């Protein structure tokens, strides 16, 4: 059956991309919340936050991009849940197709939808004064980190998508993910935080990912942050994938 894997995945990805083009609001709402967070932080609180020589919108954008992904993947869980609920998942599983294509199609769709949302958010940031002189290589590195982070969170989203009992349950998992950047270096330098908060902030994935992207965009030499960031992304990806596949095997046997 593996011979059909790519063809079947392409057909099913086409299907769920069509879902998105028919309800583009999912991409808009994914972008709206990060923008709504970005506006007051840049125009209201930002003036009071000392980020050194960097403009606050430049400082803030990496964290906002991660929030965008975290809110975007909740739609992946939602779409997968609807497929389970409507019985179309079972229809696909009883057909002579490469069965895992059903999951991969949702994962690829998530990737495409999130990249579109990220572009929208970056465009808004440009309007708000975000500027970067970073070259193509640095941007490719940023894109690579964001893609890896999206894949990691998407596989995480597959788990509630497959196992949730209600629509709310399917998308609720993303709330803590959206909140995570608030206790990291995304909004304020960690050095200003009290002990325990600082310890948590400095040792959670968001901080290293945000720092790595920030350095790349600002054309600063990236330190060990990028390796820690990559390790987090790959680590989350592997663990989430393993649990997602376990949940998937339970559903099909």
């Amino acid at each position, binding site marked *: 059956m593996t011979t059909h894997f790519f063809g079947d995945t392409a057909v*099913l990805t086409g299907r769920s991309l069509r879902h998105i083009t028919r309800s583009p609001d999912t991409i808009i709402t994914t972008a709206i919340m990060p923008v709504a967070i970005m506006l007051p932080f840049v125009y209201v609180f930002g003036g009071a936050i000392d980020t050194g020589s960097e403009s606050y919108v430049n400082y803030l954008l990496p964290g906002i991009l991660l929030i965008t992904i975290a809110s975007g993947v909740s739609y992946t869980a939602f779409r997968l849940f609807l497929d389970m609920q*409507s*019985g*179309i998942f079972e*229809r696909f599983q009883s057909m002579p197709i490469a069965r895992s294509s059903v999951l991969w199609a949702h994962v690829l769709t998530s990737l495409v939808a999130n990249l579109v949302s990220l572009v929208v958010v970056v465009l808004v940031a440009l309007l708000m004064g975000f500027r970067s002189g970073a070259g193509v290589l640095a941007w490719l590195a940023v894109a690579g980190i964001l893609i890896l982070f999206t894949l990691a969170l998407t596989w995480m989203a597959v788990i509630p998508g497959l196992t949730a009992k209600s629509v709310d349950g399917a998308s609720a998992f993303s709330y803590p993910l959206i909140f995570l950047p608030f206790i990291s270096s995304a909004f304020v330098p960690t050095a200003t935080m009290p002990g325990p908060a600082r310890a948590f902030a400095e040792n959670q994935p968001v901080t290293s990912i945000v720092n790595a992207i920030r350095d790349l965009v600002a054309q600063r030499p990236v330190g060990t942050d990028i390796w820690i960031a990559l390790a987090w992304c790959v680590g989350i990806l592997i663990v989430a994938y393993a649990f997602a596949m376990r949940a998937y095997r339970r559903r099909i046997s």
Partner: protein
Amino acid sequence: MTSQHVIHVQGLEKSYKKLEVLRGVDFDVARGSIFALLGSNGAGKTTVVNILSTLLKADAGTASVNGYDVATQAADVRESISLTGQFAAVDEILSGRENLVLVARLRHLKDPGTIADDLLARFSLTDAAARRVSTYSGGMRRRLDVAMSLIGNPPVIFLDEPTNGLDPEARIEVWQAVKELAEHGTTVLLTTQYLDEAEQLADRIAILHEGRINVNGTLAELKQMLPPAKVEYVEKQPTLEDVFLAIVGDSAQGSSDGADSNNGKGK
């Protein structure tokens, strides 16, 4: 014998935690026949269908479909079957035609567009072809669902409670579609909790009760199990179904013979 029996089930057992749903189910289905699995809610009809369509693994027993073992040759079984589940498994956001094209592509068939157009015509959905399925009525949705199952002409079709929640007109439409299938040589395994549905459609009827098949036979055989009918003269009253269909529309042809045969039931 096995070439005669396109579905062969023996000693099938399945429990969910401590709940024993199937406790040794045996039955065979002859090629080209309509076999109805009758049972109340929770009797395990869907569990049987899910095991036969490789969605669920049995705890014990064997089952084969079209000569392939459901546990060890699942991929071959999936080539041979189509499942129409309890709830119309259609994509609400796509149009009717797109749903059919999607399934045709997934079955790796040539010319999915033509296949879709043929089925739309056959199930009187041509006018609604370009509309999103979310705007369809329950009956249209079910017809689309059944149409999707026919793509690729699988020799065996499972219909799990195909008329659940449909209005009487839509039920008759689905029955018509099922009868046509069997005329074309497709084997149909149908589950239902509606007794009249089994009477209308099935060549053989099996009753699944408390995890086993209690009774298995033709309608005539099943009727013989009860004491012979007493002949009584009763004024023929139209059934409520007759009245409803007479008022609601003309697409109800074929229902009257059903009502007549109901009348002769010896209960």
